[in-house]
């Protein structure tokens, strides 16, 4: 794999931030907001998403049958189906159809070139159809305005839905003024649109063949569903007498009734519209008369096509459905990549992604597809190398999981591909230093930076044991430059300060479980405890245990004050760090070890309380893939986020006045955490803060931009800061800012240049204290 160097990657990202960032952010974030509002206003959105996913699961399961079904249906309608193995196969077939049809119609003479109009289709981008047809001497014009802008600019799409989203109006105007040299220079969107409409209108009326994609293909009726706002797909499909639809095989759904939920949800997820302007459902060849603008005097309905009643449409019409495999049937066999085939290409995942909002698809994409799900598509259709280069930009924040209308676990697909990329790397410059610190389950060849962050628990343990020396060392110039060189840790980042005394040690020293029970009894005697007979295992995640020990202490004190005895055993890592580097084998091992370590507590009826949201998310989401089902369920049902747990205690009668309370309306800014939001756990923290006398204002920025180790990496420093600044502007006016995640807190502390504690530190009895 031709890897860019860190410096090259950083340069490329910086360039995109400067050139395309603004336009992308404006459009993607607006679409995302509209999607959020529309989802929220749709009563049955969850049912709709569940149904849509179920239909896709079933359709992909039955795909070979559906291909036969659609072949029969289209042939019965009078059209042809061609299943193309790969890009070359599909392109050759389409070129052949175009040449044959133009010859038959006698319009392709020596001087006349066959002409094709096309409506937007990522699938034809995937196979580079335009280049292939041009090589055959065929004239091809994009009719979707965004695609056409790209064609004129000789640029590539940066978004599945808004391909030219990265180009501003002013840039389009400049481009068109230069290229078309109008009498009056174009300025407004109206002028540009009017020009495009006229120019493209002519191309459409002259064209020999119209090519479209298909958003869905209904197998049993041979119906092509096209979803557009402009109307160009309708024109391309019905104006020339020949229509070629090119669609990936995964677009097949069984019946017309299966189409309904998708018609209902696709625009909602793509742009936040309730429904698109045109949902075109054609079972071609259609009964619509062909339009021959070369003979303007002939009635359009006067040809042989008039009064067709035999159910095979206008006999002048020709229709070809090209179903593209190009790796999809193999993806179907791949347990990890299969989900990608459920994708309906709405772009919601991209719009919801903070990194995408900053750098767009040209930062994210492989050869064709962009955004979070691109990794799955590229790995499937173009191979791993195409997916590898930038799947790094996925921080695993899970914003897209809530946005995706078919509930694809996009972060997991990214993790899987990362893992496969790791495994395919050649063992090289093996770093003995990292090697010594990293007793993981991975094979050689893994990038040292990944390996370091994936084993952060071991690193932290060693650093804590040698603190404060390790901290001085880490801050020293030569060490920072070595860290940057070997591990890619940007020297502009503050490194975590490791504490000499870990949370586990602190807890033991103050008397362990026995002391905790004593304190709890005192709280009960004061009547501040909850009406619950519970015991808690407080999970010492790496950061809480070695770096942010204060929030661990605050959690312990809070639980005790509310009447719950706590234990803080030395527990294995959750696997979160390994997962974020794509080290699935390591994560799998750690998940098993952690489960084994808490099994007895679970059997004894104890609750597991987790402070770091990303660790809880590992237990509640990824462990489903790593643990036996019963173990996963058991741990998930008995593990809680700290503030969620406190909320439960207050609901069960615990007295909030045992905690540090505000004056009832004390304004604070609260930044939850991406994965915490996906787990619906922002609300309990807000509720607890309110019950304790604060008036929290929550941030709605998609991400803090740090997301685990992501923000430490040298190549992503500027991107991380760009994302962080959007959050910064939302919270900076508040006197007190609290954040639930370590990385969120780190990022905010750097940008705001002040302390950003965990909410539990604000709430703990006695307030913030060492």
């Amino acid at each position, binding site marked *: 794999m031709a890897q860019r160097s860190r410096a090259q990657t950083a340069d490329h990202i910086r360039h995109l931030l400067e050139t395309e960032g603004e336009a992308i952010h404006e459009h993607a974030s607006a679409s995302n907001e509209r999607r959020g509002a529309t989802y929220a206003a749709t009563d049955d959105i969850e049912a709709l998403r569940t149904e849509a996913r179920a239909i896709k699961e079933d359709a992909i399961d039955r795909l070979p049958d559906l291909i036969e079904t659609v072949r029969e249906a289209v042939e019965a309608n009078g059209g042809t189906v061609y299943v193309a193995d790969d890009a070359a196969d599909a392109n050759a077939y389409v070129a052949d159809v175009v040449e044959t049809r133009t010859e038959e119609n006698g319009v392709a003479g020596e001087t006349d070139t066959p002409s094709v109009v096309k409506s937007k289709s990522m699938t034809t981008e995937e196979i580079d159809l335009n280049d292939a047809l041009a090589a055959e001497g065929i004239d091809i014009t994009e009719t979707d305005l965004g695609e056409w802008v790209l064609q004129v600019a000789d640029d590539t799409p940066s978004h599945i839905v808004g391909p030219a989203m990265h180009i501003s109006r002013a840039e389009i105007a400049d481009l068109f003024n230069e290229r078309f040299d109008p009498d009056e220079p174009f300025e407004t969107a109206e002028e540009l649109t009017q020009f495009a409409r006229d120019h493209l209108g002519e191309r459409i009326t002259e064209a020999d063949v119209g090519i479209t994609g298909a958003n869905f293909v209904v197998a049993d009726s041979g119906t092509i569903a096209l979803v557009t706002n402009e109307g160009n797909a*309708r024109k391309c499909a019905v104006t020339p007498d020949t229509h070629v639809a090119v669609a990936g095989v995964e677009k097949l759904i069984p019946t017309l009734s299966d189409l309904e939920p998708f018609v209902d949800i696709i625009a909602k997820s793509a742009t936040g519209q309730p429904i698109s302007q045109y949902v075109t459902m054609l079972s071609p060849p259609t*009964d619509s*008369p062909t339009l021959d603008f070369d003979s303007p005097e002939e009635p359009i309905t006067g040809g042989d096509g008039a009064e067709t009643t035999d159910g095979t449409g206008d006999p002048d019409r020709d229709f070809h459905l090209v179903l593209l495999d190009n790796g999809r049937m193999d993806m179907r066999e791949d347990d990890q990549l299969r989900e990608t085939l459920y994708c309906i290409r709405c772009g919601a995942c991209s719009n919801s992604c903070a990194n995408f909002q900053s750098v767009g698809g040209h930062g994210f994409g492989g050869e064709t597809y962009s955004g979070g799900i691109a990794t799955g598509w590229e790995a499937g259709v173009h191979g791993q190398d195409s997916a590898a280069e930038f799947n790094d930009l996925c921080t695993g924040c899970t914003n897209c999981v809530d946005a995706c209308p078919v509930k694809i676990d996009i972060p997991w697909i990214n993790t899987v591909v990362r893992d496969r990329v790791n495994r395919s790397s050649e063992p090289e410059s093996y770093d003995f230093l990292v090697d010594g610190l990293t007793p993981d389950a991975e094979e050689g060849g893994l990038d040292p930076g990944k390996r370091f962050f994936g084993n952060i628990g071991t690193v932290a343990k060693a650093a804590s044991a040698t603190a404060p020396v390790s901290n001085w060392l880490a801050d020293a110039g030569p060490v920072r430059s070595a860290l940057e060189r070997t591990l890619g840790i940007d020297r502009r980042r503050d490194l975590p300060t490791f504490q000499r005394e870990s949370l586990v040690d602190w807890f033991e020293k103050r008397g362990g479980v026995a002391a905790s029970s004593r304190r709890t009894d005192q709280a009960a005697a004061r009547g501040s405890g909850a009406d619950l007979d519970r015991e808690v295992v407080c999970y010492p995640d790496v950061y809480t245990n070695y770096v942010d020990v204060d929030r661990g202490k605050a959690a312990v004190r809070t639980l005790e004050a509310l009447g719950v005895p706590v234990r803080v055993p030395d527990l294995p890592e959750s696997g979160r760090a390994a997962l974020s580097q794509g080290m699935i084998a390591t994560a799998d091992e750690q998940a098993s070890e952690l489960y084994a370590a808490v099994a007895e507590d679970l059997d004894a009826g104890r609750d597991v309380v987790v402070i770091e949201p990303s660790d809880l998310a590992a237990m509640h989401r990824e462990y489903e893939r790593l643990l036996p089902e019963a173990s996963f369920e058991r741990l998930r049902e008995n593990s809680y986020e700290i503030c969620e747990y406190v909320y439960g205690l207050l609901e069960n009668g615990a007295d909030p006045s045992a905690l540090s309370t505000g004056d009832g309306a004390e304004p604070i800014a609260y930044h939850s955490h991406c994965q915490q939001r996906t787990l619906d756990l922002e609300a309990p923290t807000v509720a607890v803060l309110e019950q304790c006398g604060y008036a929290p204002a929550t941030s709605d920025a998609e991400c803090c931009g740090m997301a685990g180790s992501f923000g430490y990496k040298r190549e992503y420093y500027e991107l991380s800061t760009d994302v962080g600044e959007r959050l910064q502007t939302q919270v900076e006016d508040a006197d007190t800012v609290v954040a639930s995640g370590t990385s969120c807190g780190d990022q905010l502390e750097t940008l705001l240049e002040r302390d950003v504690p965990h909410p539990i530190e604000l709430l703990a009895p006695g307030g913030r204290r060492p």
Partner: protein
Amino acid sequence: MTVDTVGRFERALEGLEVGLERVSAADAGERIERTIDEPAVGAPLPFEGVSLPEGVTTEPTAGELEAARTGVTPVGFAVAEYGTVAIESTPDGAEPISLYPDRHVAVVAESDVVPDLSAGFERLAEGFDAGRDSVVFATGRSATADMGNLVHGVHGPGDVDVIVLEDR
């Protein structure tokens, strides 16, 4: 019930900046005439006692279609929830007539306005069974944001009017 449904249809269309007029069959011709910009082309209206006004050319030539400023077509049914009209691909050219001219005037019987998308899909399925298996759900006006701002009337109509035949 029907009245409510048409009311809901009207509100949805308002949000899309599409006009809706309710008329009786007897008044329809006159009202359509007032709505159109000439030259106009049309597909024959299949409602008893309702005919297209004089100035609307049916069976247009390709040249007339290209030059027309208004296209008048019947629609099979409408979905009140979203303000959608269902345009069928018919041999008399309803689909291109509804698409090419800058203004589309859609004529629908009140009894064919269904409340929501599910009811719309039931009607769609009935049509498919009867061989009417190419249908466009058109909602509002053609639009694009690709040139930097939202602009209406790109490849399709920039103006849409809906006429509901109250006694049908």
